[in-house]
């Protein structure tokens, strides 16, 4: 047991914690705010919303992104929607119900206080976005429309066709650009963070590489926020964009930030199946499709008939069969596992590889093609472009794929990591989703952190700590810059035979086969033997062409893959130590009828790993989880 992890959960009843805490926090007076600076790494939903809000408050913000423009951040690709406990549908929703669903959906492995706050501010997010002009879907009365998402029995998901993430990101981006125009936010694009600079135990700056010139830059501030997204690309093939990486978070980890629950990864049930070995990514089909689509396989194994020729009686609508009350809207981890079980049993609907059907025949008969096109038109179009098949006529073929990572840097209630002054927001932190995230909750969390949590908690940090003036001439900056340059020099001079992608693909294979949708002690031990060998292969045989002082996408990728290899090893160790099944972490040894079996006596805690240097293994620390409001119970969606 460790005393290093203080979650700083405020006392009081669950519904008064955040309110009381906000009142007790110290404030920075308006005139003093402009004397304080904040660095933000990443400008997706969490980063851009934080940059806009902190800029509005008067802080001097420096925002960095790897992209040419903040509007490219991968939040843009989120399709389905954003949850909020508005109860506009009068169907019994409430803050408490959203809180309850999220704790249960996360299989009782999230911190209650954080989840409650998330549900509490969810309603403000919708209001804020509407005020920014985000064009949410509306009904004919002009009011906001909702749809249903997995793991909930109420309709609380707000959406903008199948492009909700894009619209919310652009809202946050525009709010941030307004602050850029006003001179409050200094936006630095095409910069990759390669180190956190710690001075006297506090995060006081970053080292970034200018991706156009290769220059290594030093930047100082009073606090640093990492909002760099998740690490699904450790699997090589995932629904993440190509530049999504663990690098910023990992560099923070190496400077003392604990990494929590790395084994909690979400495999999304509805993605396009793998088509070939040259494939560079997997494409998600929004969960919202399960509102109207029915998932099935043939009852006959290896059935090669055309799907439209298989009569209803010979179809196994397995989600409806196994989970009669949630049906096709079972949560993601559950739906993914059921698809895997069907394919493992020989019911895959494609001769090479694995897939199940997602069928809109009945919905089209009931509502007409036009209604379905209005709801999902862009998704159907995207499916047809990739697969060459028309989903209005033939059922979609889908299969689970790595999508989201619940694990991330450990943070306390104030979203601060174990390094004072280093805050973590959005998917990059571990805080709100436990072992499984419900659909439409990622956008909610990113914006909650950026718009409504960090602007308060960072103010409290700045007001409560005496922060001496630090410039980039400080030795700590020089040391960090030298170390970064040395590592780049090392990678450039390996000059081996293997491309970065070939090593990344090999890592992905190891992770997917051994630490993917299901894990065993045996598979994890196997991976823990393979990964160190791959690490050695990387550091002896990778080939990066070109030079370090120019645009060099291969060098960028190489640095990211080096970090993914180290993370992969930690994921496997974390998965091995967590000798139970929960949410997305499915240990085959612990199941009953294909459902995850938790071990609350031994594992009702967060595992947070402390970096001990390159030559030593990380240390595992625990933060006990207390469930005082939602009773610990076996999750059931039947």
């Amino acid at each position, binding site marked *: 047991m460790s005393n290093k992890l203080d979650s700083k959960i405020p006392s009081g009843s669950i519904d008064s914690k955040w309110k009381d805490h906000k009142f007790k926090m110290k404030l920075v007076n308006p005139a003093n705010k402009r004397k304080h600076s904040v660095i933000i790494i990443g400008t997706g939903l969490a980063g851009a*919303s934080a940059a*806009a809000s902190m800029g*509005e408050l008067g802080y001097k913000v420096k925002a960095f992104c790897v*992209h*040419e*423009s903040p*509007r*490219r951040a*991968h939040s*843009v*690709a989120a399709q389905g929607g954003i949850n909020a406990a*508005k109860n506009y549908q009068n169907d019994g929703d409430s803050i408490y119900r959203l809180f309850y669903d999220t704790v249960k959906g996360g299989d009782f492995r999230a911190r209650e206080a954080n989840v409650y706050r998330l549900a509490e501010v969810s309603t*403000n997010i*919708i*209001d804020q*976005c*509407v*005020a*920014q*002009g985000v*064009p*949410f879907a*509306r009904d004919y*009365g*002009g009011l*906001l429309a909702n749809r249903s998402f997995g793991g909930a029995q109420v309709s609380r998901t707000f959406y903008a*066709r199948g*492009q909700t993430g*894009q*619209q919310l990101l652009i809202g946050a981006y525009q*709010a941030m*650009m*307004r602050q850029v*125009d006003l001179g409050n936010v200094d*936006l630095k*694009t095409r910069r990759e963070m390669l180190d956190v600079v710690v001075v006297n135990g506090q995060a006081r700056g970053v080292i970034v590489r200018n991706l*156009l010139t290769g220059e290594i830059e030093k930047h100082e501030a009073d606090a640093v926020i990492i909002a760099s997204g998740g690490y699904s690309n450790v699997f090589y093939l995932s629904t993440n*964009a*190509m530049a999504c990486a663990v690098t910023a978070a990992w560099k923070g980890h190496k400077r003392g930030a604990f990494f929590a629950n790395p084994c909690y990864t979400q495999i999304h049930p509805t993605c396009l*199946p793998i*088509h*070939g070995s*040259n*494939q*560079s990514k997997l494409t*998600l089909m929004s969960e919202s499709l399960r509102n109207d689509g029915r998932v099935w396989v043939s009852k006959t194994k290896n059935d090669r008939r055309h799907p439209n020729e298989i009569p209803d009686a010979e179809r196994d609508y397995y989600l409806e069969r196994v989970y009669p009350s949630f049906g096709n809207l079972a949560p993601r981890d559950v739906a993914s596992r059921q698809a895997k079980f069907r394919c493992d049993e020989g019911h895959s609907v*494609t001769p090479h590889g694995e897939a199940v059907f997602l069928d809109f025949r009945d919905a089209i008969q009931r509502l007409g093609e036009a209604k379905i096109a209005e709801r999902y038109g862009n998704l159907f*179009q995207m499916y047809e*472009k*990739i697969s*060459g098949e028309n989903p209005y006529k033939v059922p979609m073929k889908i299969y689970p794929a790595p999508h989201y990572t619940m694990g991330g840097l450990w943070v306390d209630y104030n979203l601060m990591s174990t390094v004072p002054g280093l805050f973590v927001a959005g998917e990059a932190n571990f805080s709100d989703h436990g072992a499984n995230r419900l659909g439409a909750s990622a956008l909610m969390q990113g914006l909650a952190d950026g*718009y409504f949590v960090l*602007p308060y908690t960072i103010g409290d940090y700045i007001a409560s700590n005496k922060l001496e003036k630090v410039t980039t001439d400080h030795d700590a900056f020089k040391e960090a810059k030298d170390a970064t340059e040395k590592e780049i020099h090392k990678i450039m001079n390996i000059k081996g035979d293997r*491309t970065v*992608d070939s090593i990344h693909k090999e890592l992905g294979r190891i992770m997917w086969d051994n630490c993917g949708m299901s894990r065993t002690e045996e598979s994890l031990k196997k991976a823990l033997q393979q990964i160190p060998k791959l690490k050695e292969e990387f550091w002896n045989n990778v*080939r990066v*062409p070109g030079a370090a002082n*120019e*645009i060099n*996408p291969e060098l960028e990728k190489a640095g990211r893959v080096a970090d993914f290899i180290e993370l992969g090893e930690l994921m496997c160790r974390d998965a091995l130590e967590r000798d139970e099944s929960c949410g997305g972490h499915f240990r085959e040894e612990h199941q009953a009828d294909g459902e995850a079996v938790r071990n609350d006596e031994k594992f009702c805690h967060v595992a947070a790993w402390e970096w001990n240097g390159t030559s030593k293994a990380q240390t595992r620390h625990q933060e006990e989880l207390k469930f005082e409001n939602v009773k610990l119970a076996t999750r059931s969606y039947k």
Partner: protein
Amino acid sequence: MSDTKKMNLTLRVWRQKGSQQSGSFKEYLAKDVSPDDSFLEMLDQVNEQLISKGEDPIAFDHDCREGICGSCGFMINGNAHGPQKSTTVCQLHMRQFSDGDVLNLEPWRAAAFPVIKDLMVDRSAFDRIIKSGGYISVNTGNAPDGNALPIPKVNADEAFSSAACIGCGACVASCKNASAALFTSAKVTHLLSVPQGQVERERRVLSMVETMDAEGFGACSSTGSCSASCPKDISLVNIAKMNKEYLKAAFNKKPETNLEEGV
């Protein structure tokens, strides 16, 4: 997914080391391409071979590979994002091509989009257009209830259709004048279609158009090539609306007084 045969293509790719160097076309063979591969996956394979041979891989911007981030984009045989309508180049699949095809790949050509390297261009001018007024000024925490102000469904849908722009720059690259009118007007129209955007409508259109001109984009001569090449089908109507809005604002313009000074 189809089981059709693999194909071989010839690529003539614009290679340019940097914005200060001159560039030229270079020929490459793309061998054993699967029709199920995306266009960028085909280029990945060409790059893997170039790296193995010790040559410099072809630089191109890309990220989500789902047609939504707007990072990718270059000309294929003179068409922005290639031959398939309403499709970004990352969503373009090789089944659109035939064995033996010869494809010319070149970057967006526009004075306001200088080439960075090979097929990569600098589109930061778009960010500066948004920065000059493409937003609604509302600070965090000031918002009334989302349903306090009903918005007719048609207006909300119209706002969405304009807001769907991904900022890829195909409109500029396809325009003989390299005009950014479609991009700029999509944002003007989006914010014009919702009630929250009314307060700043005049200031917004004047400022954004002024920035667009200052960035070196050309004038619009209504040929419509922008909309025809747009992967998100942003309508030409947006430009008409922006022009009308601009005219009205230019005539209505009131001198701005800074009240804060007197406080």
